[in-house]
């Protein structure tokens, strides 16, 4: 099969399944051959998932993590998009605030954990705050650059039809920048999922991140640790997959042709 040939329908599923099977095999035999007593084999992990599901902690933890991501990411969307549109539109405001944004942006949300605990105490709000911080900047940056790349013709046309500035932002600038904003939001959602796990290890006592650290601390249950990690990976994939569905909507697809 050359790279130009279109893969057949069965190949699209067959090869990825083989790759996963190979990984599981390498994992399994590594555990067997090294004779480790600490690290679990895939079968141990599978039993661990079953045990967690049976005790109902798994669903509760998944629910808690997703809820925190939804709140933090949602807040970042609600605040980040209008703020980003305004900054992209108003270059004086952008010049004023850009240094602050550029200094805050490279600070890992993990470094904010102590501060978040001072602000909000140990609990949901601290975790949501961390998720919010992690997802705000990608959305903000995507908005500002999305607005900057709106073709001047669209603005002129909007003005010609008598739109005021708020109308122009809502009816021309926002839809024109939306494909880029969606790309930023997708990156933000990925970061949100990374951050919630890290935040839950320290700032709260529920969620998948807490499950990882708790399984280790209470009895070194590494089968449960890896089981929780696996769930984190699968749910992260699910989130990205669902978000990509948004990019198929016709009113944004025009701007995403060469995006993967």
């Amino acid at each position, binding site marked *: 099969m050359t790279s130009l040939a279109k893969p057949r329908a069965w190949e699209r599923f067959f090869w990825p399944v083989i790759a996963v099977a190979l990984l599981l095999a390498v994992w399994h035999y590594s555990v067997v051959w090294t004779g480790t007593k600490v690290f679990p084999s895939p079968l141990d992990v599978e039993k661990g998932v079953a045990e967690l599901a049976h005790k109902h902690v798994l669903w509760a933890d998944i629910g808690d993590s997703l809820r925190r991501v939804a709140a933090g990411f949602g807040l970042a969307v609600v605040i980040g998009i209008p703020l980003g549109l305004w900054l992209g539109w108003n270059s004086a405001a952008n010049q004023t605030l850009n240094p602050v944004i550029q200094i805050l942006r490279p600070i890992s949300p993990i470094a904010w954990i102590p501060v978040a605990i001072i602000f909000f105490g140990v609990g949901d709000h601290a975790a949501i705050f961390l998720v919010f911080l992690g997802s705000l900047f990608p959305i903000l940056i995507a908005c500002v650059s999305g607005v900057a790349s709106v073709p001047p013709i669209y603005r002129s046309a909007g003005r010609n039809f008598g739109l005021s500035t708020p109308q122009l932002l809502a009816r021309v600038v926002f*839809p024109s920048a939306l494909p880029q904003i969606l790309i930023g939001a997708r990156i933000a959602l990925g970061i949100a999922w990374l951050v919630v796990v890290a935040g839950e290890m320290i700032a709260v006592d529920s969620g998948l991140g807490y499950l990882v650290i708790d399984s280790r601390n209470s009895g070194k249950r590494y089968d449960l640790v890896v089981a929780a990690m696996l769930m984190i990976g699968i749910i992260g994939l699910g989130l990205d997959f669902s978000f990509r569905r948004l990019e198929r909507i016709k009113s944004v697809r025009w701007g995403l042709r060469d995006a993967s």
Partner: protein
Amino acid sequence: MPQTEAEIPGRVPDPIQGTKLRVQHLGMTYDRDGQAMPVLEDINLDVGDGEFICLVGPSGCGKSTLLNAMAGFLSPTSGSVAIDAETVKGPDPRRILVFQERGVFPWLTVEGNIGFGLSKLPRAERERRIAHYVKTVRLEGFENTYPSDLSGGMKQRLQVARALAVNPDILFLDEPFGALDSITRVIMRGELLRIWQTERRTILFVTHDIDEAVQLADRVVVLSSRPARIQQILTIDIAHPRNISSPRYLELRDELLKQIGLAYEI
């Protein structure tokens, strides 16, 4: 409209009935790297109501600048533009500028684009107008299609429909067919003439295509090279539909080529 359908085919350019647009001593100077660069100099032009004017001139002479100044997107350095004796101070839905390409909104369907300027109208009236202009530019069956699935010619027809839907007095067209292939361009000229004859708007049309100007215009305004002045105004006294191999057509075409300094050169 006083004009009836029956009179249209044999239509000869009317004598100017009332001035729609008046350009007086218009000058335009750009600031390029701190140096003043004159683009337009002392432009004087009266356009009659319902007239079809083509602006031609050498590439980069300032045709588009003049059009943008008349449409209110640029304010002149000196002189003035007045429409219905009212000085133009900015863009206005009563006069719509149609761009060369990529002027339609890709996030809206054909219907959404045509209805873009109609949000203040009641729903029924908006839908009636959309349906009317979908028909006018022959995009029936494409109402819910997005521009990315339309051809270049269809996109330009859509842009014209979006402009006409808000019922403007004047259409400014900035090389609207410049990006189309030559066959589509000829078809589009026919379509534009048909629309102009039924809708009766004043049209100012920038083109670099001599044939386009002679086929479409009542009068052709020839601009000189930069800084542009009006070099000549040529009245095309041929009735529509124009026979493009008639002696008069060729004569006017030659005259225009001579004005631009290109006659008999190829």
